[in-house]
């Protein structure tokens, strides 16, 4: 799977969890939680959803590695 595909999958998931966010609000290098006002619950949902899609578990210790769209995409790319 290509990084771009992963990215668009992540974006799709974010939009599903927070339907009121516009796609162009999601920036590549911005902190997902802070820039999109996504709280810990929604963030957990996103990760749960990604886990269902890619089968990759993100341990709590790795949360700092999935803080931006770019980082999250890389994180999954490495583990797929």
């Amino acid at each position, binding site marked *: 799977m290509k990084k771009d595909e992963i990215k668009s999958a992540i974006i799709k998931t974010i939009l599903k969890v*927070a339907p*009121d*966010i516009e796609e162009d609000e999601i920036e590549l290098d911005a902190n997902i939680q*802070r820039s999109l006002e996504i*709280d*810990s619950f929604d963030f*957990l*949902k996103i990760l749960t959803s990604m*886990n269902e899609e890619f089968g990759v578990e993100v*341990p709590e210790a790795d949360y700092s590695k999935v803080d931006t769209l770019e980082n999250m995409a890389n994180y999954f790319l490495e583990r797929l």
Partner: protein
Amino acid sequence: MPSLGADMESAILMEWLVKEGDSVKKGQIIAEVETSKGVIEIEVFEDGVVEKLLVEEETDCKVGTPLAMIKSDSKEKKEEVLKVEPVEVKEPEIKKEPIIEKQAEKIEQDTRVKISPIARKRAEELSVDITKIIPKDGLIQLAQIESIVQKIEVPKKVDSKRDQKDSMRKAIAVAMSRSNAEIPHYYLSTSINMTPALNYLEVLNKERTIKQRILPVALLIRGVVLALKEVPQLNGFWLDDSHHISEEIHPGIAIALRKGGLMTPALLDAGEKNLNETMESLSDLISRTRGGKLRSSEMTKQTITITNLGDLGVESVYGVIYPPQLAVVGLGAIIDKPWAEGDTLSVRKVMKATLAGDHRATDGRVGALFLEKLNKFLQNPEELL
């Protein structure tokens, strides 16, 4: 139309989920209504049969408007007994009419608020929901309205559905200002070392799949609930000039809506939920809140409010009590701070917990006791399981 909140005047009946003739069970959702706070489900409080839907879909109804006639099982029996009498029963439908009216009348009577004309006028101007004011000597008068709204700017009248956000802000403003004016608040705060709790969670979550993970906020709520069990004076209401302690614990959880606005639906029966259940129902409550699918009981049953603005990085939260509740617990952001333990100074995860209490019901001593208990549980997180 049930009143679902202190600041609700009316709502639009969006959809009937039952039709005439359907049997309904207590607690069943029979309709969805759109309020200034979003779509809310209406539940039924008795077993029975839907006899008549009195309001069409998409109708704006004032609080107190009868929406449907539900003939409860017990009543039907009564009617049967009546029919045994040798009275002409040719047209039973006609016989039912007056019963409907009678019940409708009764509903209206029950929700009728005695209020002086000038007080009503001022309340309307200032968007104060008079149904939530406790009358003094059976009557609401101007002075009471004015004490409530002293600090509120007169909001513009906003009625259209499009301006929901505005009307919600207005509702919050009114409730909050009313609270400030009516309730003598006292505030307490304490810093809690969260390192033990977070370490405990880390260990716990390591074993779990993402789905089963517990978020710190769930642990915190669990802590608050257990602390309330030990200091129950803060859980309940101030009604009719007296202090009512609630046995059930239904904390209202402040949930920010991304589109703006804040709701505090109740996490029902939190006292009977363990940590996992707390996490699960919290997750469910949050998604339903944001999806506009709250139930009426969740809108009305709160016994205390918990505000957690930690996600937004706010360090301490001094809440304003929602009348007729007795307290607001504020949980701030967990941040790294120097922490002294004995002679040692080290960096710890620290959270500021605050308590705003109604001075008419409790005093600072009770509040301090509560914060102490909360701290105790968070230092011994295994007790929160």
